[in-house]
């Protein structure tokens, strides 16, 4: 697509999403709207992983850690301040800071691929265990009791900035959540076009090369990791507003789900994970009420089939299908028409390791 066409597409997309944001509350009943808000806030979580994993190449099994931290920070701060304004700010800052710390720990330790996965997963488990064990009276932050397994059910809803007297209704929270999703999506697109974003992508493509060009890979990874952490925190705030804050926010369930959404939607895209998140949540919710088949069976089968058959995910699949339709009309290009689909190397952030010993078979023999 040319730059102008993609610009036009963005504008159309933007227009449609704005229209949807304002139309939905008038057509949906309250319950459905609340659910839609949950879907949208989870889509922001998917977007955060799309950045970290899909563009930063950092396999994070612990997106739930930032998500949960965001939720808890918001709840604790809002209860203490009474006003949600600074709570929102804090709930982005705390997960971001934590991501920065964890990132510093990992990237400066030169920890790569699977090991990143293990450490982020472990971190999430630690949070889960710790927050689950805070039921006692001793675990209070200011006025807010952490509540252990029970969580913090009485989290105050968002209010108008610096106006405690105006708590927002579920409709208002919908507007906020949906606008944030649109904003963060276009923000992410912008981010990836900045020089920072381009370097991040280059690192995913070939970390060694960027290093040999003189880029301090660790800093860029840390940057995108921190941004992703803050974004997951935002998702946590919204979740706290439409469900409630409890240790399950740190559970494997959310970490797993978000990875599934990104995989199914298309790693290395921004829109794909958003679509994946919303579509899969709707499917699972539908199946849950039908009670015919266990939602886990569906979710598991979808992930399995996608990894085996559609490893690039839904969006790239649709795009290449679209391109193939358009192709005959376009002037035939001079070069052999290798589509990105044929270069699986670009798909996964880290070069994958083969069974022991078989990996670098060809190239090392050629003289050193």
């Amino acid at each position: 697509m040319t730059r102008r066409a993609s610009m036009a597409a963005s504008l159309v997309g933007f227009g449609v999403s704005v229209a949807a944001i304002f139309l939905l509350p008038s057509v949906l009943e309250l319950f459905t709207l609340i659910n839609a808000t949950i879907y949208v806030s989870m889509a922001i979580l998917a977007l955060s992983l799309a950045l970290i994993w899909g563009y930063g190449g950092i396999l994070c099994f612990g997106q739930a850690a930032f998500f949960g931290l965001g939720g808890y920070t918001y709840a604790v701060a809002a209860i203490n301040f009474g006003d949600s304004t600074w709570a929102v700010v804090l709930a982005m800052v705390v997960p971001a800071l934590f991501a920065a710390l964890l990132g510093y720990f990992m990237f400066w330790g030169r920890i790569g691929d699977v090991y990143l996965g293990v450490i982020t997963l472990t971190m999430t488990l630690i949070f889960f265990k710790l927050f689950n064990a805070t039921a006692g009276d001793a675990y209070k932050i200011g006025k807010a009791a952490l509540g252990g397994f029970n969580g913090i059910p009485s989290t105050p809803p968002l209010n108008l900035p610096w106006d405690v007297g105006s708590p927002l209704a579920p409709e208002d929270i919908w507007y906020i959540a949906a606008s944030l999703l649109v904003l963060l999506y276009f923000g992410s697109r912008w981010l990836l076009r900045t020089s920072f974003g381009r370097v991040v992508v280059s690192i995913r493509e070939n970390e060694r090369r960027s290093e040999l060009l003189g880029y301090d890979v660790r800093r860029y990874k840390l940057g995108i990791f921190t941004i992703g952490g803050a974004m997951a925190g935002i998702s946590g705030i919204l979740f706290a507003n439409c469900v409630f804050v409890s240790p399950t926010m740190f559970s494997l369930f959310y970490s797993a789900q978000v990875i599934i959404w990104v995989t199914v939607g298309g790693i290395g895209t921004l829109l794909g994970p958003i679509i994946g998140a919303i579509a899969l949540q709707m499917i699972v919710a539908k199946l849950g009420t039908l009670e015919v088949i266990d939602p886990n069976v569906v979710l598991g089968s979808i992930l399995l089939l996608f990894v085996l058959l559609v490893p690039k995910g839904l969006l790239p699949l649709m795009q290449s299908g679209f391109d193939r339709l358009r192709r005959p009309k376009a002037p035939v290009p001079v070069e052999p028409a290798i589509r990105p689909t044929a270069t699986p190397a670009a798909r996964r952030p880290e070069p994958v390791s083969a069974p022991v010993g078989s990996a670098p078979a060809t190239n090392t023999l050629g003289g050193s």
Partner: protein
Amino acid sequence: MSSMLERRKVLKAAVAGAATAATGPWFIKDLYAADEIKIAGIHDASGGLDLLGRPMIDVLTMAVEEANAAGGLLGKQIKLINYDAQSNIQYYTQYATQAATKDKVAVVHAGITSASREAIRPVLKRFNTLYFYNTLYEGGVCDRNCFCTGSTPAQTVEKLIPYAMKKFNGKKIYVLAADYNYGQITSKWVKKYTQDDGGSIVAIDFFPLDVTDFGPTIKKIQAAKPDIIMSVLVGGSHISFYRQWAASGMKKQIPMASTTFGLGNEHVVVSPEEGNGILASYAYFHEVASPANTEFIKRYQKRFGDKAAPLTEVAAMTWHGFQLWAQGVKKAGTVDRMKVIEALEGGMSYEGPAGKSTIDSATHHDILDVYIGEAENKKFKLLQSFSQQKPADTAAVCDLKKNPNDNQQYIIDVKV
């Protein structure tokens, strides 16, 4: 999403036009909703708390069926919507929201753990939907929108501790409690009553609901050498404790009492060697030998056949809770929330399988008959009963007559 909505509208219209509503798909029932009273049940039919949840669902279902067979309520049929929260607190909030905003039910009977209650109580309060919580719990809830029909520590633990100390001839108690608000607060009551009766607490250990390995704890208990073990453990995972305790041979050495053993039919799940001799105290046991209970169990077993599990306080109080609500509706002549609350506050009382329950209008808790039992070969042997116990713990902090707008759970300041 909007296309789904579109389809639903189209279907609604089509079905309405054809007037074949009776055979229409499930989502069209809204159409003739006016003829029936909808109520919701939210319990755990699966997951770690299923042992507690399923009898509650069965009993609630049976209560509605019997009411409908007897002509319904205010001349309308009652439609019960059962939600399975899958032992996941998040589903409680979700389903409570759904019941209140989508189904627009008249009352919600819901919740097993105190965590689940505290998750849905604010939701139902916000959406003005009446709430019945029918499980025994740690006490202290003060909310005019909520009726708590189960027993609280002042009714049971207060009796159980001196009984156990006397029977087992010991004063040092080691407490194992589930790590959430029920376990935290109940263990305080255990401490208070132990000290009131001249005993002492050796240690209180808390366990998250997913802990299954009690090996180190069992060694710790041995090192502490208590006279009595007090179990405030909850749910499927914690059953491992009774198993591992017996397997280590400790069961013969140190006797045990519990505020929860048997409530989820733990005594049926574990073997007699693992369960026999454990003391417990509830407002109802399956073995209560009143004619009302015998008759009730007969109907229950007839209805559910092989699936019929032994009934416990949570099931019986679900029954009592529904009956109390139904009486309130009849008295008010409407399902309107405030009118029903006012009717119930007039000292409404029901006599059923668990004896007589009377609503204490100041606390919205029940005045109950209480029993102490001992596990024996997958049943309970009743040792003593206490009639018409008041919810003194909650009454000490909550007076909804004076403060009708009160809305919180008091963490009762136990003097220890």
